[in-house]
Each structure stands twice: as structure tokens, then as C-alpha cells.
């Protein structure tokens, strides 16, 4: 009996370790493709996040470049306006702002430099902007149009994996992993060269609406 008991204990231990490890890393999300029935699960996952017209919060961005053995960290504030788009205000170490809406992308930096790309003028941008915006739209159908979706839920924690359908987008974004509980907490994006770009989101709060400046950036 001792041997079987011991074996059972080892197996149990191994299983527990495996499960814990999987969960800690967000699991191997790529083994969980979203089934047709799973779209309602994603909708319910997103619903707390999309309940408010405007959500504001803080973010920390970590860009890891393996070839240089370096990490580039920046922090700032984000605004997600449900039906209009997203706005990323990087504060440190270099101030810049990025606004993405369905029709355009606007970039500004501290030296007053301003660039704008219209979706109708550029195929590649239109695809990438649509992909980024769909992540924050809370719309499963929009996500499905641009990505192969993977989904895994453990208790109140969930992970969504996204792989772009379009080869051209895949050249810029290989994959995206979203993880969270009641709200989206982490976005891990693997760029075209294989370097990870990690966003840690914190202090999400419903906002009272967009400022005039924010509206100008998102509503044109």
C-alpha cells in the first residue's frame, strides 16, 4: 500500500504544482481556443469594464528588448471612452500622448510634435488601429473579426489570448494576452520582432466624461 500511496501523493503534488504554475503564468492560454459558446463568457468578462462610458486609470509600460538585455519602463494615465476610443498619456520618463479612434491615430509629444494618420488613407494603420481599439471595445464580435481568440477562466480570474488573423498585422503584433479579474489588469503584447510589451493597469475608476481636449483628440 505504501508504494501506491506514495505514488498518488507524488502525482497529486505534481498536478498541484502544474496547475499552480499554469495559473501563475496566465496558463498556456494558447491551448484554449474560444468555442462558439464561449463568446457569452467573454461578454460577461468585459461587462464590468464596459459598464461606464469613460474609465480612467494608471498604467505602467515595460518594453523588454532581449537583444539589448534592456527594459524600458514608462508610466502614465489612460482613458478608455467606450464608444470613442482610447487615450494614453505617457508622463515619465518622456511625456507623450497617443489617441486611437476608429478613424484616426494622433500622436503628440512634449516638443509639440504632432502627427496624425487617417484610417481611410492607410491600410496597414487601419488594421493595427482596429486591432488595438477592439481590445478596449469590449465587443467580442469586433475582437473576433480581427483575431483568433483564446479564453480561459479560473474562478474570478481570466485570460484572453489574441492572435491577429491578418498576416500584415501579425508582422507588427504577434500576439496579445489580456489578464484580469473584475477589471483588465495586464496586457502583454508580443511585437513583430518578438519583444514583449507589458502594460500593467491600475486604479481604474469611472470617469465623469471626456475633457474638451480629449474630445478633440478622439471625436474628429
Amino acid at each position, binding site marked *: 500500500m505504501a508504494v501506491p500511496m506514495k505514488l498518488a501523493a507524488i502525482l497529486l503534488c505534481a498536478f498541484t504544482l502544474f496547475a499552480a504554475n499554469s495559473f501563475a503564468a496566465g496558463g498556456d492560454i494558447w491551448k484554449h481556443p474560444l468555442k462558439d459558446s464561449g463568446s457569452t463568457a467573454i461578454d460577461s468578462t468585459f461587462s464590468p469594464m464596459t459598464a461606464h462610458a469613460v474609465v480612467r486609470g494608471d498604467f505602467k509600460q515595460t518594453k523588454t528588448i532581449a537583444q*539589448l538585455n534592456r527594459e524600458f519602463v514608462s508610466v502614465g494615465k489612460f482613458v478608455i471612452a467606450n464608444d470613442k476610443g482610447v487615450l494614453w498619456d505617457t508622463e515619465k*520618463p518622456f511625456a507623450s500622448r497617443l489617441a486611437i479612434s476608429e478613424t484616426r491615430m494622433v500622436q503628440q509629444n512634449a516638443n509639440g510634435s504632432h502627427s496624425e494618420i487617417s484610417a481611410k488613407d492607410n491600410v496597414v494603420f487601419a488594421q493595427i488601429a482596429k486591432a488595438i481599439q477592439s481590445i478596449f471595445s469590449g465587443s467580442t464580435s469586433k475582437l473576433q473579426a480581427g483575431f483568433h481568440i483564446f479564453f480561459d477562466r479560473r474562478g474570478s480570474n481570466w485570460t484572453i489570448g489574441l492572435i491577429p488573423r491578418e*498576416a500584415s498585422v501579425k508582422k507588427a503584433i504577434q500576439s496579445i494576452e489580456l489578464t484580469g479579474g473584475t477589471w483588465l489588469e495586464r496586457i502583454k503584447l508580443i511585437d513583430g520582432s518578438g519583444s514583449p510589451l507589458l502594460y500593467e493597469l491600475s486604479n481604474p475608476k469611472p470617469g465623469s466624461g471626456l475633457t474638451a481636449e480629449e474630445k478633440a483628440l478622439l471625436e474628429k
Partner: protein
Amino acid sequence: MVHIAMLALALCARPWNIDTSLYSILPTASSLKDVSEAEKRMSEQTMNQLNILVGHEDFQTARKAADWFDSTLKDDSRLESVRYTISDGALEETANYTYRHRFSLLGDDYVQALTGTAGAQFARDEALQRIYGAFSLSDLSHLEEDPYLLGARAFDRFTVYSPLLSNKLSIKDSRLVANDSAKTYILWSARVHPDEKGIASEGHVLERVNAAIDSINMRYPGISVAKSGVPFHSFESSKNAQTEITWISAISITLALVLLIAVFRTPIPIASTLSSVFMAIVSALALTWSLFGEIHMFTLVFGTSIIGISIDYAIHFFTDWKFSSENPDGNGVRKRILKGILLGFMTTELGYIALSVAPFPLLRQMALFSATGLASALCTTLFLFQAFPKATHVRAGRAPHLAASLSHMYDWYYRLRRPLKIALPVMLCALAVPGLIRLNVQTDLHNLYTVSDSLKKSETLANKVIDFGTSGSYYIVKGASAEDVLQKEESFIHKMEQGKKDSVFRNYLAVSYFVPSKKRQEESFAIIKQTLQGDAATFLKSQKFDNDSLFQKSLESFRPITPEDTFPSDWQTALQTLWLGEIDGAYYSTVLPLHVNDASALPGLANGCEGVYFVNKVPEISRSLTEISRILIVLVAITNLLMFAIFIPVYDLKTAFRIIRIPVCAGIAVASVFGLAGIDFNFFAIAGVILTLGIGIDYSLFFREGGGHVSTTALAIALSAATTILSFGSLSFSQFQPVYVFGLSIFIGTLTSFLLSPLTQKRK
């Protein structure tokens, strides 16, 4: 002897070049002639392009259909290239190229921002935004070597901001797609092999493309296919024209031969007449090739037709030979018809000499060709046919008598009282006035080609869905070397930028966007080096890098790019169209305005720019043809006056007037009918009038000189008119506008000349 010499000359004149360029029509002074070869190359680049859109409400169905279409045609050897799926490696290829040549491809805005004291700070800020900004997907792996991320900047210029992408196309499943009216269209494009004939022929690749389009509709119900591209138009119009002209020619030639055989009952006159026409064509070709080096397509068509009137001399000869009761031999016939034929020849030649006065080389060529051809026909008739012995069976028969009744058809008119005799022609002339008032002397190339409804619908849909934004107008830049062209283009680009700001057009494409001049690249590099070389160490330290050795080393790798380099595959189609390269020692490129809003402002942009030519081919050629048409009308009038002046001493004033009124009335009749029918009196119509001028004079003189041989003269004229009307008049049944107009003009002119010519005969 002369003919043998001409044959030898024709053989020596090889290669027998035929000029098909519409630019040859332009007057010698036209500046566009300077770039006609470049335009031709540009046309060759764009004229072989096919675009097919396969659409359906369901993308997957559209994709299946487009995949099937691609698999059917992609290996066709007559297609030089096929573009359907976007290569996965295309973006990477562009990224590698733009990184390698980042110092050359940054664009003027960026380089200008580097000048001045804040230049280095600007470069730092731009780089820091890429490093720390949100969702910046710039590749940072080369940061030590390229700390200011110039490679990423150059890459964005050709991916994010590229004018190549300013259309309605997007990418889905590695295919270019566009949406319209709830349907998703997938683009399939190809380039027809340059060796493939421009016109429809057996086994033409367009036959297979059209068959595949037909099959796709049957295989995938509900699918929409739109096709666009010049080859479809050339194929359709030439196919229709060929079929039609083959039928018309076959029927009219058969009828003409049947008529001649029925009348002559012997093949000798027919064979001799045809050999006379053949020799006329060979002589005309030989002399034109010898003097001009080539012959224009228009000269060939127009001139060969003119030689057709030389058939009249032979018919006139053989009618007299065969039907005259005096049964003369060849020499005898020659004596009898000499004066009429010679006068007809001289006056017609005079008309051709008048043509050569105009400042259009094409008209001079046409004049030489026709004058030579006609002279050859005259020589054959007067010097070769005279050797004919007497006809063995002189036929009186019914034909001459029937024809002779033609000479009596106006007897009633001569019996009228003088006031009525004057009033009747005046009234007839008055009838022509409304038509002449409405006459529109204009040659518009647009009106010469009628596109079929289905192709028009297809083109409209394709333009709406794809919206490439190109129009028929563009600029050609000419220079002494590749570098010279690029420098001239760069000077011109300032004006294009202004045009863009002024909303003359939404965007534009130019070679210098992809390949700046060597001078510009070196100047830019000097600014980059001067601004950043000293700043790099500090900047890299601020980003926690040890030193700037990699950056300093990278500065040594600068090498200017040239138009002859190998470019990323995504750029190749655009560069093939834009860079025309070396032609006859000069270099050329094109600048394409896209999505033009104000076409009237386009020509002005080239003003004052050395070596820059605005090209808008269709209106330019149309204007020239209209000018030629007007000159031709004046020349026809002058020729008539000259003929009149010649006839006065030969005959008398009254007879001269009687003779000249026939071609004048024929010309007026043609113009009046065209005016009344609202048909443009264009180049082809006037060419027909010139032809009938010779015909009218001949008929008129033959009747005048027929004297006592009324029946044979009338028969000769009736046969000439019948063969001319059958051969050329039948062309008025053509759907192909130039042929229709030419045929109609000859039909009216010949008929009028034929009907009025008995009025010139001597009355007892």
C-alpha cells in the same frame, strides 16, 4: 522601269517602320514631342495592366471564387506577372531595406527639423517617443547602432504615410479587399506580356481572361466581377472592328468584283486594275519610307484609301477599251482619255501639294504618299496599258446603254426656263445652309471610341471600389542623366506640395519619394552627421548605454541609392511606372497626381519648371486633330479655287465653273448632312471630303471629256462610283466611329459627285 525602281527602293527602305504614335500627329512646335518616346514607354507600362475585382456579400465565397480565378490564370505564359496574395515577407523586406538606407530615406521634413540649434533635441524627442510612448511598435533592437531610430522613421514613411496606400483597399486573409454596397471585393491584378498583340487575335490571353470571368459567374452564383484596364478596351474594340470590317470588306469587295466581272465578262481588266492599285501602293510606300524613314498608321489608312481612286483611271481606260464601238487598241484609248485623266490627275495632285503646306508633318507625309500613289496609277494607265491590243470581243450590250441614260437624266432641267434654272440650284444650296450652320468642326478622341455598356459599367464599379485615384494626366520629367531627372523632380515637388495644400489633388507619386537625388541624399546625410554625431554619446549614456561606437561606425555605411538599385517588391510596381529610365540618351520619370480635384490647375504647376512636361494626351491630340481638320477645310477651299483657276484657261470661265461645282457641291453636301445629323465634322470626315474632291473632279472631267463617247464614259463613271461606294461607302455601316464617319463622308461625297457629274457634259 520606274516601277521596278520603286520596288527596289521599297526593298532598300527596310526596316519598314510603321509609326503608331499619336504624338506624331502633333504640330512640329508642340513641346510634348520632346517627351513622346517617354510617354510611349509610360503608356506601355500602364496599358498592360489588368484589374479584376471578385465580390460577394460573403467574403469566404468571394475568396473561393477569386482563388479559383487565380489558379486558372496565374500560370498563363502571356501574363507577365500576376498579383493576388500579399507576400508575408513583403513588410519585412521593406523594413530591412529602409533600415539599411535610413540616412537616405528620412524625408525632407525630418532632415529640415534637424537643422538649427534644436536639431539634436528634436531627434532625441522623436526617438524617446518611440521608446517610451504607448503602443509604439518600433523595433528597438538596433538602438545602440541607431539610437535616434532613424530606421523606424524611414520605415513608417513607406508604410504608415505612403501615398501608395491612399486608396480604399485594405488587407484580409493576405488579399487586397475593398467593400462596396454590402459586398466585399477581392482584387486580382496582372500585367499582360508586352509581346502580346494589342488587338484581338486567335488565342489572345484576354480571351482566356474573359472565359474565366464567364466561368466564375456560372461556378459561383451571385458573384460580382468587375474588370478594368486598357487591354480590355483594346481587345473589345479591335475584336468588334475586325469582325465588322472583315464582313463589310468581304461583302463589298465581292459585290464590286461581281459587278466588274458582270460588266467586263473577262478577268483581264480586273487583274490589270488590281495590279495598277498594287503598284501604286508599293510606290507610295517606297518613297515615303525612303524620305520619312517610317510611315504613320494614319497615312497608311488614309493614303491607301486615296489610292483607291486611282482605280478610276484603270476603269475609265478599260471601259473605253472594251465597250467603245471604235474598238481602239491601248494606244487609241490613251489618246481618247488622256486629257480628262491628265487634268484630273494634275488637279488632284495640286490638292495634295496644298496639304504639304500645313505645319503638320503628318499631313506632308500623307500628301507625299497619296501624290506618289496617284502618279504611279497614272503611269500604269498611260504607259503600261497602252500596250494592250484591241479587245477581241467588243461588247455593246445593255450596260453602256443603261449607263448612258445617266447622261440624259438632267435633260428635263435644261428644258426649264432660265429663272427656274437658276432658282432650282439656289434652292438646293439654301437647303444645305441649316446643316452648314450647325456644323461642328471638332475631333474629340473621346467621341471616336464608344465603350460597350457592360465594360463601362464594369470600369465604373472598379474605379469606385478601388479608387486608385489616377487620372489620364501626369507630368514627365526629362533630364540629361538619372541624377539630373531626380534633381529636377525634387525642384518640381515643391510645386506639387503646394498643389496638395491647395487641394488641387489629394496626393501624388514621384520617384524621388523612393529615390532622392544623390545630391539630396548627400546633403541630408551631411546634416544628419553634423547634428547627431556629436550628440549620440550623451544621448546613449542617458539611455544607459556605454558608448556610441556602433552609431559612429554606422555613419560610415552610408551609400546613396540610385534608381537602378533592387527595391522591395512592394515598391516595384510603382517604380516601374514612375521611373522610365534612359531613352535615346535622355532620362525620364513621371509624377502622378492622385485623386485630382481641380484638373484645370494641373498644367500651371509645370510652368517655369525646367524639364517638366504636363501630359494630358487625349485633349492634346484632340486639339491637334481639330486644328488639322480646320486647316484641311481651308486647304480644300484653296485647292478648289486653284483648280478653278487652272480650268479657266483650259476651257472657259463658264465651263470651269461647271466642272468645279461638282466637287464643291459634294463637299458642301457632306458637311451639310453631318451638320444636320449632329455628327462632328472631324478629321476622318474631312479626309473623306478630300478623297471625294479627287473623285468629283475626275467624274466631272471624264463627263466633260467623254465627248461623243457618252455611253462608255457614263459606264466608266457608273462603275467607278459603284466600286467606290461599295468599297468605302459600305464602311458607313461600321459601329467603329472613325470608320463610320470616313465611310459616310465618302458615301455622300461620291453619290453627290456621281449624281451631279452628268451636268458637266457638253450639250449640243
